[in-house]
């Protein structure tokens, strides 16, 4: 365990240095996340200028969900996104060969190889939105509901990880997977609004068949007491399933790995 923690820190360190080599990256993140925050707030305001409540959600509840969406998706960027995105590249260029000879779990190494610590700034903008909406709603939330939210979101982050890692692993089978980033956007976009807004059937499918609903909507519903408490366990179940599957699929695929010829 200690070994893995040390390697994790070393990877954080080297990724940060690598990132700072291009200093415009950092300014890019700050402008980018500020502008997208403003656009989001405008959109939500436009929706709610027509009605006070949409499918049982009030304006500030949606604000809170949007804020949380920003936190989760930025955290995903900080920890996983770039690394997973690079898997098809590793496969195509044969760099994976070298990673596989390292005396460390290959999934762990690849998962944390390219972190983006500076994306934490975007998490901050999300937190601002969460704070603002809580102020506006003027409600007291119990510790239990807070812990439901946080545990639910952690499970959600792992669900997203498992799904995205498994999709990227497909590149071992198909050789190239240049559209992997687009697939991520397709997965991510519906998370930004409450899934209930898609109507009953779609939201059911997106919750229990493809468990995207457990990433953000369900934790936020738990927070407001809109879903029964045992939904948290569904979330944990789906998270374990997603991570287990990603690991099984990774190892299974490696058995069939043919390695790019050199």
């Amino acid at each position, binding site marked *: 365990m200690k070994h893995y923690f040390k390697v994790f820190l070393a990877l954080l360190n*080297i990724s940060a240095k690598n990132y700072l080599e291009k200093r415009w990256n950092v300014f890019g993140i700050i402008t980018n996340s500020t502008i997208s925050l403003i656009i989001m707030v405008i959109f939500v305001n436009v929706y709610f200028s027509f009605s006070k409540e949409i499918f049982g959600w009030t304006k500030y509840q949606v604000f809170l969900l949007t804020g949380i969406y920003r936190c989760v998706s930025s955290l995903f960027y900080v920890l996983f996104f770039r690394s997973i995105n690079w898997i098809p590249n590793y496969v195509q260029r044969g760099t994976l060969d070298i990673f596989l*000879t390292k005396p460390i779990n290959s999934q762990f190494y690849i998962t944390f190889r390219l972190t983006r610590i500076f994306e934490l700034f975007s998490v901050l903008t999300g937190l601002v939105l969460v704070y603002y909406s809580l102020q506006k709603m003027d409600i007291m939330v119990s510790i239990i509901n807070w812990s439901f939210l946080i545990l639910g979101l952690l499970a959600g982050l792992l669900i997203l990880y498992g799904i995205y890692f498994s999709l990227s692993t497909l590149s071992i089978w198909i050789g190239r997977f240049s559209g992997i980033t687009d697939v991520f956007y397709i997965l991510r976009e519906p998370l930004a609004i409450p899934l209930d807004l898609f109507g009953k059937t779609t939201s059911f499918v997106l919750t229990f068949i493809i468990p995207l609903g457990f990433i953000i909507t369900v934790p936020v519903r738990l927070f407001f007491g809109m879903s029964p408490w045992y939904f948290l366990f569904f979330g944990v179940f789906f998270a374990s399933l997603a991570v287990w599957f990603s690991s099984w699929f990774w190892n299974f695929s490696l058995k069939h790995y043919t390695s790019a010829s050199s």
Partner: protein
Amino acid sequence: MEEPIIKVGDLKKYYKVHQKEPGLIGSVKSLFSRKYYDVKAVDGVSFEIGEGELVGFIGPNGAGKTTTLKVLSGLLYPTSGKVQVLDFTPWERKTAFQKQFSLVMGQKNQLWWDLPAMESFILNKEIYEVPDDQYKKTLDELVELLEVEDILKIQVRKLSLGQRMKMELIAALIHSPKILFLDEPTIGLDVVMQKKMRDFIREYNKRFNATIILTSHYMDDVKELCERVIIIDHGKILFDGKLEAIIKKFADHKLLTVILEREVDAEKFREIGKLESYEFPRAVISVKRSKVSEAAAKLLKDFPVDDLNIEEAQIEDIIREVFTAENVKS
């Protein structure tokens, strides 16, 4: 030979590859039904390698050299066969095994492109759990051997190919592996750098008693470094033994070079042996081993010879012939 540390028995690695007819229609067809056939990358290879040996794998492109190395380092699961490296089965990828070898591929890199190579070494130190004092000692030694002191702090992308290859080697050797697999380590390097690389490999093998397997297209690499050579073609071993033995096994002739005082009809040489080249005043005749002295005597007696030289055939030529013969056969 002492107890071998690499044992390979009847190793086979087949790839399934699908056939595609040319053209767009062929591509569309292949979406629905595909004909597969096996490519036999490695087809029943067996050998053993002892500690401290420096062995060269040679063979044309696609002969199965790299595939064999990839199986030995645990990247590929073989189709069948037994492989043991340091008493481990490579593709189980045990940590204890992975800490004891290194794979360097001339065309693939592990260094972080935008950072000085030093950063990659530090990362590898953590991954391989190298203690601080050992890390420092190994690094100093390698830096001195490869003479790279002054470029340690320069971004990798600003280094020349040769400099980068040296850094790749340091990154691969920082955990002092017992076994080193070198796949085309000198590819793309200029002659001077190739020589330096060879000197380093030889020195490393001697100093640390490391077992090294090297694949290369350049005969010079193998000729200068390896006592033992394994020749692979079409996934099969054609030869395994001392380099000089290649000559005995495959070259049943020697080359007689004559410098003539005056021109002679080319036809006359054919009585003696096979005329390889003739450009007055120099003629090269290849003669069966057993008939060399007889031929030389005849040349001196019947021809206006100014100078006569008897040589072994060039290893490059012999190997080329072996491969060409194989290709004709298949």
